């Protein structure tokens, strides 16, 4: 009676074990990659807005300071989204008839708010406070990227907890002089390793990594 399995089956068997492991590893890697993909984190994803507002033009082009619109960034947890009135303070004069700005004028006429889609959306169990970060020399650009170069604003970073902790464990890697916080074009005058340690000491920046600092 002939053997059911030929000798070459051994090779297949060994191969299939390896292949099986590779599939498991591959699936694992795929899941890992998926969990960190922009699809999940929303990083680098451009979001559609009711008005195609360009930060690039308003910040780099005109030279508006961040705080012209985001008024509560230094005082409150929430940086603030400007009321329609702020837009109209210029656009009642400039580009007063531009079709692209019709939703803004409509909002002003009707008293109905513009509804922007949130770009940086932290989960409900995370409590972030803008004012303390700005006060301790953490620039807008560190988290939000070069907004002055974004026509339509997108999320630059993953906003994962490990990303937060990267800075909370070692703020010296990112800290800036307080007067450079709102300067999008800032480059350190000395190496960051030197200036960072000095500023952390000067501003008494604490490495807050307790859970209850953000989760409560």
């Amino acid at each position, binding site marked *: 009676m002939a053997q059911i399995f030929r000798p070459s089956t051994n090779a297949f068997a060994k191969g299939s074990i390896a292949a099986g492991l590779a599939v498991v590893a591959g699936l694992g890697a795929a899941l890992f990659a998926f969990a960190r993909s922009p699809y999940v984190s929303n990083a680098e994803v451009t979001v559609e807005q009711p008005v195609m507002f360009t930060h690039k033009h308003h910040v780099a082009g005109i030279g508006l300071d961040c705080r012209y619109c985001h008024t509560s960034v230094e005082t409150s947890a929430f940086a603030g989204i400007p009321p329609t009135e702020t837009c109209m303070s210029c656009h009642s004069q400039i580009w007063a008839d531009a079709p692209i700005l019709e939703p803004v004028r409509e909002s002003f006429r009707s008293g109905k708010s513009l509804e922007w889609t949130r770009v940086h959306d932290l989960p409900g169990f995370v409590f972030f406070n803008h004012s303390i970060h700005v006060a301790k020399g953490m620039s807008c650009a560190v988290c939000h990227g070069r907004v002055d170069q974004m026509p339509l604003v997108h999320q630059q970073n993953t906003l994962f907890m490990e990303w937060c902790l990267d800075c909370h464990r070692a703020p010296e890697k990112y800290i800036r002089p307080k007067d450079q916080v709102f300067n999008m074009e800032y480059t350190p005058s000395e190496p960051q390793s030197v200036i960072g340690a000095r500023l952390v000491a000067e501003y008494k920046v604490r490495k807050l990594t*307790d859970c209850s600092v953000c*989760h409560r």
Partner: protein
Amino acid sequence: MSSQPNTPTPLDLEAIRARLADAKGPEFWRSLEQVAETEEFRSFLDNEFTQGTSEWTNPVSRRRLLELMGASLGLAGLTACTKQPPEKIVPYVTQPEDIVPGKPLFFATALPVSGFGDGVLVESHMGRPTKIEGNPNHPASLGSTGVYHQSAALGLYDPDRSQSVLREGRNSTWQRFQESLNLLREELLASKGAGFRLLTETVTSPTLAALIREFLATYPEARWHQYEPVNRGAVHAGTKLAFGEAVSPVYHVDKADIIVALDADFLTAGPGAVRYSRDFASRRKPENMNRLYAVEPTPSLTGGVADHRLALNSADVDSFARALAAKVGVAVTSGATKAPAVWVDAIAKDLNAHKGTSLVVAGEHQPAAVHALAAAMNAALGNIGTTVTYIEPVEADASDQMASLAQLTADMAAGKVTSILIAGANPLYNAPPDLKFAEALRSVKLRMRLGEYDDETSAVCHWQVPMAHPLESWGDLRSYDGTVTLQQPLIAPLYEGKTAIEVISVLLNRAGRELRDVVKENWAGQLKRDDFDNFWEKSKHDGMIAGTASAPRAVTLNKDLGAQLPAAPASGAEVVIRPCPSVYDGRYTNNAWLQELPRPLTKITWDNAVLISPKMASSYKVQNGDILEVKAGGRSVKGPAWILPGQAEETITVHLGYGRTRHGKVANNVGFDAGKLQSKADPWRVAGASIGKTGDWYELAITHNHHSMEGREIVRFATVDEYKAKPDFAQAHDKGHELFNMYPEFEYKSYSWGMSIDLNACTGCNACTIACQAENNISVVGRDQVIREREMHWIRVDRYFEGSLDDPSIHHQPVPCMHCDNAPCENVCPVAATSHSGEGLNQMTYNRCVGTRYCSNNCPYKVRRFNFFRYADWETESFYNLRNPNVSVRSRGVMEKCTYCVQRINVARIEAEKEDRKIRDGEVITACQSVCPAQAITFGDMNDPNSKIAKLKKDSRDYGLLAEINTRPRTTYLAKLRNPNPELEKAKPAAGAHHA
């Protein structure tokens, strides 16, 4: 095995009594079941949760469940990978000046309890009121509040409130109602108001009162009536007897060395209670302890903190007061009293030795004679002007409300009334049944109701108009001492609610005036100041009009009082009817926070009960939960029995506020309506009562056996003399334990938070529990879940009885998370969801928690709470606005517990860091600390040697709960002190010597 005990093991009260009498040391007990060591109690003690709490009890079989679980496992794992749904940001079109998104604003306003206004500050997030705090500058608050103020936030967002104008049950509009009022106005003009009646609750508002007076001047034939069940009628009648004019007492509790409470729960109920509690606590320091005697038929919180408490029938309080009055120099003849002679003698001696620094307080539910006697005793002892002052009644019309309602009923029955406007009052539910109000009302041609709920009274009215919540309206209220407290709206009326002022204005042809202007103009006219506008702005900001407290009136004692006193009531079995300590007279019954708040002495939730003494239970062979029929005065009610140690032997107590039929989803058909026993002659007491068993049994949702810590040295106390001889008595117990730790010590480089709770100040009023619930978005679980020991309160108030069954001492102990340095919970969490912070907090990270419940199992204090179901209400939209946006709303399967209000710590830390300084002492105030009327709770940084908390931790009375097991709790207690009268102490039957 059945998952839930049906009828429990019967209790043998005689055995319990004998057991307590035999006790050698101090015997602390929470319940009769505990003393009897019944099976049910063992099950509470031995298991982390009671039988059936953590088991699957649905009819679906275990096998089927596993199948379903297997099938959904793959999908379940993926739920963590779902994307967050896109979120909108909706900015203002024109930003209001003061609003900074993300920062709350606080507004001063006033909240009424039975018409009396207490000053509060309301936290508002982007126009949504979320949390009530006390107004530190207001004399009735001094920064604290009671439970009803705290629960007002939930009351505002209650979806069961009346949401639209109804005409004969069908939707209508305010416009239509106004048209109807206009027609009525024309009729009234012709008839000078004949046949029109206005019925309100207690009115203290000067603006509303002025408007009503104007209305009565315009329509001279119209009449105004006031009625609500809990009113100050007896106080005014009593002072009229004593002084010849109706006046209201204002107590200065801090000036009194000796206080006698005659069935008076003045520390937790009635106008000024929050302030009295603060003043009382200020005199419970070891160096200047006052002494409180309480004589009462049913244990109250004031009786619980008394140095000596005597249980006496309600009827016998009168004869006791006469006997005491005769001994302190009041010209009355005293008859026999049931009180032991040594009591009368000892108290009289104490009072006579403290002339000018003693105080006699009579309770609102006692008849006029007792109030007159209390006033006479204060006069005879020279207390008037020092510990008590008398002011003109704060109510706009202080005439007798029961007589007023009886007059109204008689007129209606006689056909003299053609139209009635009922503003706020709910007589269909709360008028004594012997008045037959409902039948009389039905004969009125036009019946209009302004009410917060479409309730029993609305059901028989042609019109039901939604009434604005106090947080939605402009107005003014007067406080216990007369201070005018201003109300300003925190939010526009959610359901187009109106106030009495607006409705009456229509009848005066002044519709459409802004309520704000009506109030302002009234005061502009009253005050006539040149700088009125500025003064008004300041008054609004402060929440009150400065300098409006009533001046004391000079009173002279009626010389013939002894002859004019009504005869003392006959003693004997009686029913005593009281407002419920949680839901009051029924107006708060639909408030789920209050329903689930354990009643302070019985620990019953979601129900009322027939409270009886252990002796009565023995003689009638009644067990807890037996449905009894209570008969008195030809009327009867049925309700579950509850044996309450300390209850006067022949007194049966029932609480108002239940048995509502038309109020809301929470309230309807909960408990029984004790008001059915009331009579117009004496609403608070019915003589000649009897009870009979019906043979049925009902399971009450009671929390007193929950979260038990077994018989360790939990409450520690001594007398003042013992304390002076041995100041560290509370710590003696812990010495001799060798404590060591295998883990490295934590280092606290910045802050080290700690809490201290003064058991000597705590009255057990529950304000901390409900303030915590409001601050931390704590869910309500419902009666069924409470029975399963699943209530969610982060801070509970444990009530212990100590000593004999019939006359125990009562102790209260608030228990939040201890934030142990060696926390047993932290070590067992497999996912590090609970961990130790660098500032000493025991952190709970909800998003990490997978719900193993190991931490709760390992917690010796039983302070962790698990979301067995999704208790948080995500369906009711109005509740979204209620929640504190700075605290996560927890979902199913997550453990939670006291965080030391870490959201408040974080706010303070951020503000301090921005200003480059340390957090100041007193900058972080936890919700429980801030609300506490007695200021029993202190919180702060123990690393700062100058902080209040650091000093309290060095106090010789400081002790840690279960400190001998080396958990090193950060929450510690200051041991309780008593200041007994040695003469009464000697006379006390030999109970076990208490712990020292």
